[in-house]
């Protein structure tokens, strides 16, 4: 079986999250959805356009179909945004490592997301909520450019705040008339909230520039390198460690990542 | 080559002159072979030489670029650039090995329906002599 050949799958439903983010609910036409863990990715193809590595935003243990939450940025994501339910796409995966949830038993979890970076965190948050007792306190910090750019509003506003001992803290870069919440960039907002590093693991995902400053802010707050987990994204083509593209030093983001602890990142060349 | 083979001609036609000329040929019920696939362009100056090559690549047996007579361009000077450009391109294509009959540049005004029909007739006859084009054409 050629690992570069995707399964054909059907878009069952499309949820409009924000003006430029949609969630695609996808089921393979034949056979089963592959098993995957939070943080893993899959290569999604629009035939005739190409492939893109997308993080899986659904949670496997909930048993539902695959979900990809996709921001419209380029050719493939653009074509996806043009698609309708019933259209067929290709899916192959899962690729990459996953969030090391098994290491976090008893730990407080601090999720820090920016923009579409909440997609893999959503998979993780729902995964952890389903085994809520294993962890300490949850805090979710999430920022977007504007209130209308906040993804997964149902979960952000309803499901997660109602769950046991979960704090949801939202911020936007620029507010509109109705916004009553914080207006700040994620790293500043994080520093203002000032969560204690004690017994806490911070997991961050967002655009590269946000990750860079968030890592600095976490260090400022006293988090150790091992307490910080992040994800990286680099241009990928094959997803299976053969195309020589997504390397950072000797590591390939597609097979050795996308999840890295800050301690691991520091071992790598600063070239991502 | 099967007996029913008919050449395919991609004809880039300026919308102000040649395209209208082709229309006139139709409304005047002039007979000419159904070998040309007209592509309407705002001006013959719009026709990037890469379009010509792409047409051959995708299976055209002949390519025609046609626009207003020099001096009559709707945009005043567009076809004068075309003239320079395609003077070179025509020679260059032949230099690469393309038969001269496969690529033509013509000035055909909106009043010259007859001329349009005649060019297509001539080109079709020439291409029938030559047979299908395989040069610079994709193989799959």
């Amino acid at each position: 079986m050629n690992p570069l050949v995707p399964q054909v799958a059907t878009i069952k439903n499309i949820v409009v999250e924000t003006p430029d983010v949609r969630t695609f609910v996808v089921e393979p036409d034949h056979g089963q959805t592959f098993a995957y863990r939070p943080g893993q990715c899959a290569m999604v193809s629009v035939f005739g356009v190409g492939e893109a590595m997308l993080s899986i935003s659904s949670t496997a243990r909930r048993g539902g179909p695959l979900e990809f939450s996709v921001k419209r940025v380029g050719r493939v994501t653009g074509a996806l945004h043009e698609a309708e339910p019933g259209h067929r796409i290709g899916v192959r995966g899962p690729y990459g490592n996953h969030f090391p949830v098994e290491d976090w038993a008893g730990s407080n979890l601090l999720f820090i997301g920016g923009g579409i970076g909440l997609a893999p965190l959503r998979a993780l948050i729902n995964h952890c909520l389903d085994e809520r007792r294993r962890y300490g306190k949850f805090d979710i910090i999430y920022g977007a450019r504007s209130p209308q750019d906040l993804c997964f509003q149902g979960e952000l506003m309803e499901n997660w705040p109602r769950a046991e001992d979960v704090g949801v803290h939202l911020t936007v870069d620029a507010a509109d008339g109705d916004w009553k919440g914080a207006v700040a960039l994620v790293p500043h907002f994080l520093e203002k909230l000032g969560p204690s590093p004690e017994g806490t693991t911070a997991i961050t995902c967002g655009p590269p520039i946000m990750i860079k400053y968030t890592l600095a802010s976490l260090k400022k707050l006293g988090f150790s390198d091992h307490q910080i987990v992040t994800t990286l994204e680099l241009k990928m083509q094959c997803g299976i460690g053969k195309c020589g593209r997504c390397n950072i030093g000797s590591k390939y983001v597609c097979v050795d990542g996308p999840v890295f602890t800050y301690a691991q990142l520091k071992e790598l060349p600063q070239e991502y | 080559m099967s007996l029913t083979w008919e050449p395919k001609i991609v004809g880039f036609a300026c919308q102000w002159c040649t395209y209208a000329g082709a229309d006139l040929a139709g409304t005047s019920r002039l007979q000419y072979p159904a070998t040309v696939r007209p592509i309407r362009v705002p001006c013959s100056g719009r026709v990037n030489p890469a379009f010509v090559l792409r047409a051959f690549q995708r299976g055209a047996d002949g390519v025609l670029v046609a626009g207003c007579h020099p001096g009559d361009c709707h945009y005043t000077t567009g076809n004068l650039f075309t003239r320079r450009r395609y003077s070179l391109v025509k020679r260059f294509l032949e230099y690469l090995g393309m038969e001269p009959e496969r690529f033509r540049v013509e000035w055909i005004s909106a009043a010259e329906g007859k001329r349009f029909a005649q060019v297509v007739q001539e080109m079709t006859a020439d291409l029938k002599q030559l047979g299908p084009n395989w040069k610079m054409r994709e193989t799959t």
Partner: protein
Amino acid sequence: MSERESRLRSLAEELLASGQVRTFIGFGPGYEPSRPLPWFAQDPAGAAQLLLNPFCGATLARYLLDDGSPGPVGVLARGCDGLGIERLLADRRVSRDRVHVVGVTCRGAVDPDKAYREAGDTPLSAELEGERVLLTTASGTREFPRASCLYDRCLSCADPSPRWADDWLDEPLPPGKREFPDVAGLEQQDADRRYAFWTRQFSRCLRCHACRQACPACHCVSCSLDHPEWLDGGISLDNNFMYHFTRAYHVAGRCIACGECQQACPAQIPLMLLNDKFMRDIRDLFGVCHPHRPQEKEPLGQFCPDDPEGWREGGAQP
């Protein structure tokens, strides 16, 4: 050390020391004497290592595009470099006040591969004397004909000196005339043989972009040859025809005839036969005497009311 070389060094040193330029681009020591490297001197010590000898091969103008060089930039210019600099200035990719041109007259550069083949050993030094080249190897100095030792691109050179410079290392020579005998030779064959010829050439193409990256006229920030809408990444004969047609056409009327594209090509595709065809036809059809020398308005960026219709005049034949 030749007189020109020492003059170059002291001039570059002066320019750097006085702050007139912050980088000086020339040639410096390579891994072997017959292959000097493009050299970027940023201080007097760097300038003291500049070389100027018949092995100085690659053209330098394109390095002016690198934003890595803090400017203003001084650059050594032979005829080909000079035309390359003019090209970049005319295309507004480099501004005149950021370059300081040090002109030198070049009678051709010795191709180290040809010299190795001729001499049967690694050449250590070379001297040009009229139609002869004196090659020195470990076993002594011998004489060879110019044509068998120089880079191909130098054999048809019509511009030994740049057309202008801010400083000169020696007396400039007047430009000559570029002739196109090889184009005429190919034109004499019939269409099928010409097609067979180019098929053989283009089927070797690796699409490594060495030709584009070597060219001082091929400097678009975003190149159509990188865009799948214009050309997909599939290596096939038809796509390679598309590649070379597009490349040649995009430099038609702008090519400076330095020949660096062909020199850089690892598949040895005779790219100058394409560029020369356009140059020759531009000369013949539009009366541009020296189409390879940048002019106020490029041949394809203008027209004359009475331009000929080149397609009526017998196609490939001149």
